[in-house]
């Protein structure tokens, strides 16, 4: 099940921002360890070794001034380069951006994002994620929730914001954290060559269910991705199976349309996640549950047990059969 999805900063996806960070980390760990060992040897030698006159000044200036200055300067340049590398994913003017850090770039606005980068708007809400894909040549965005899919080997920019409190987007295997601040827009660039399922989570305490605010980021072959995105943009078709029809009717009987949108039906509520293709997602309730008929039924019938205090009310209105039908219908919305 999806609980095995990679979410480790020390197990980054290939050729991703997290890999750059991990490499920087490795350099720091190894370098720091080496310096630590040398200093410890010197300290032990200083205590137990045979006394020998040394040139204090050489050691002080060499070890205390020159060595740190050199290594720290090198580290600074390296870490700035890493930061720049993260910010420059998908741009062709990385060098310009880098030189900008030192005021050596041109005066033109080198931060302009070139076309061709896939841009996805992610809005943090208590305690779920609204996701809107920009489409080239159209002002309309493809709306979904609680899942992000990306094509491999293509730069993607997440445009992050929040509609209530501060959240933070963190996919440890893909990149570092970026806060999502109400009233502001922040950006995070992602790219990787590795196909897989990665788990992202909220990294800024945002209320009672912060721990259960997560989502899956799925990277796949560009063709598969395009197929998926096209399907996500389409409305659903009416069910022909009578059991699924019962489920669709149950959706409206329970008043779910007042909070949820399902394109292809009259439901257009915006308080809760868009459910148009909820059956295709790898999780429910923002990463809190796997997605199958059992968990769907359990979530609908008892959301306050799964995520106490979340904004989905308990609906004590469905008979047993209606609950199953509704769960089956939602699962059929692939």
């Amino acid at each position, binding site marked *: 099940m999806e609980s095995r999805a990679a979410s480790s900063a020390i197990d980054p996806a290939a050729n991703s921002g997290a890999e750059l960070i991990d490499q920087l980390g490795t350099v720091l760990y190894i370098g720091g360890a080496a310096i630590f060992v040398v200093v410890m040897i010197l300290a032990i030698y200083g205590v137990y070794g045979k006394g020998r006159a040394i040139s204090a000044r050489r050691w002080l200036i060499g070890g205390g001034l020159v060595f740190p200055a050199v290594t720290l300067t090198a580290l600074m340049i390296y870490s700035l380069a890493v930061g720049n590398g993260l910010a420059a994913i998908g741009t062709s003017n990385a060098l310009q951006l880098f030189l900008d850090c030192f005021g050596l770039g041109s005066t033109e606005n080198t931060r302009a994002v070139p076309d061709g980068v896939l841009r996805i708007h992610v809005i943090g809400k208590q305690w779920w994620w609204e996701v809107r894909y920009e489409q080239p040549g159209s002002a309309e965005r493809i709306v979904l929730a609680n899942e992000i899919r990306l094509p491999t080997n293509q730069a993607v920019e997440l445009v992050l914001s929040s509609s209530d409190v501060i959240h933070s987007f963190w996919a440890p295997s893909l990149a570092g954290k970026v806060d999502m601040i109400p009233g502001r827009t922040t950006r995070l660039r992602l790219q990787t060559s590795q196909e897989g399922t990665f788990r992202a989570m909220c990294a800024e305490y945002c209320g009672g269910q912060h721990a259960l605010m997560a989502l899956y980021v799925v990277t796949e072959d560009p063709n598969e991705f395009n197929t998926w995105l096209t399907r996500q943009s389409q409305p659903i078709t009416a069910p022909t199976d009578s059991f699924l029809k019962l489920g669709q009717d149950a959706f409206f009987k329970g008043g779910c349309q007042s909070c949820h949108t399902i394109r292809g039906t009259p439901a257009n509520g915006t308080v809760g996640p868009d459910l148009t293709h909820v059956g295709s997602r790898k999780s429910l309730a923002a990463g809190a549950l796997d997605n199958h008929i059992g968990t769907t039924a359990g979530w609908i*019938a*008892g959301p306050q047990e799964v995520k106490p205090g979340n904004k989905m009310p*308990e609906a*004590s*209105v*469905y*008979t*047993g*059969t209606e609950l199953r039908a509704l769960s089956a219908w939602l699962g059929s919305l692939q």
Partner: protein
Amino acid sequence: MPAGKIANRHKALFIATGAVVLVVIGATAGVVLLLSGAFSTAATKQHFRITYRILEQGLKYSVASNADDIVVPDLDRVADIDVGHACYREHCLQCHGAPGVAREPLGRGQLPSPSSLAESARDWPAAHLFYVTQQGVRMSGMPAWEYRISEQGLWATVAFLKAMPRMTADEYKRFASSNTHAQCPRPTTAGEYSTERAQIMLRQYACDNCHIIAGMVGPITHIGPSLVDWRERKYIAGVLPNTRENLVRWIVDPQGVSPHTLMPDLEVIEPHAEQMARYLMAAGE
């Protein structure tokens, strides 16, 4: 110190120790008796005479004390003997018999044996008869009829009980064969709600025989689901959303809600079901 004072203190200690030892011996004997199963619970073996007298007299004292505040209405005016007989025939005849009519096998193997009412119905005050019929007698085969016969029906039964000892066998037979239309009235209302009354109802309908219910002393049973904290459950019988109305509906007609369910139809009247449902949804708050 004077010799007398020392002796008194020793005496007191001796008596106290002796008392404690006796208590311990008595308790141990009781436990041994209980665990060994030496005390017979068989209905075939008769009591010791002293036990029998204590139980019999104890019943009379208890009934007298508890039935004290029952106000007896003018039975001649308000109680219909035909109705009373209908109740007697439906509910009492099986164990108590009637003039010239044997009790059914159900009433023949019991200890205590259900009394042939010729004497007690004649001798006991009406208030006492009403009390025993309404409240039953624990640890005997006499059920409580409070929730199955209306109060009017109970008084009618008492009136019949008062008349019955004066009938010959033939008179009773004629009476019974001509009394074909009277019905024993069931309760139609439930009175004011209280947790105590709701618990009585739950016991009277034998709910605690299959379900563990909060606040009630009864068997630890797993036949039906535990009803403790029932308020938190989302579904009744996996079929209906758990609301008070649906719970009432379920109690009154389980088979209608979920065919083939093992929960039987206990002929619960709706006012009783409402109070029991209220209790179950509230318990634990």
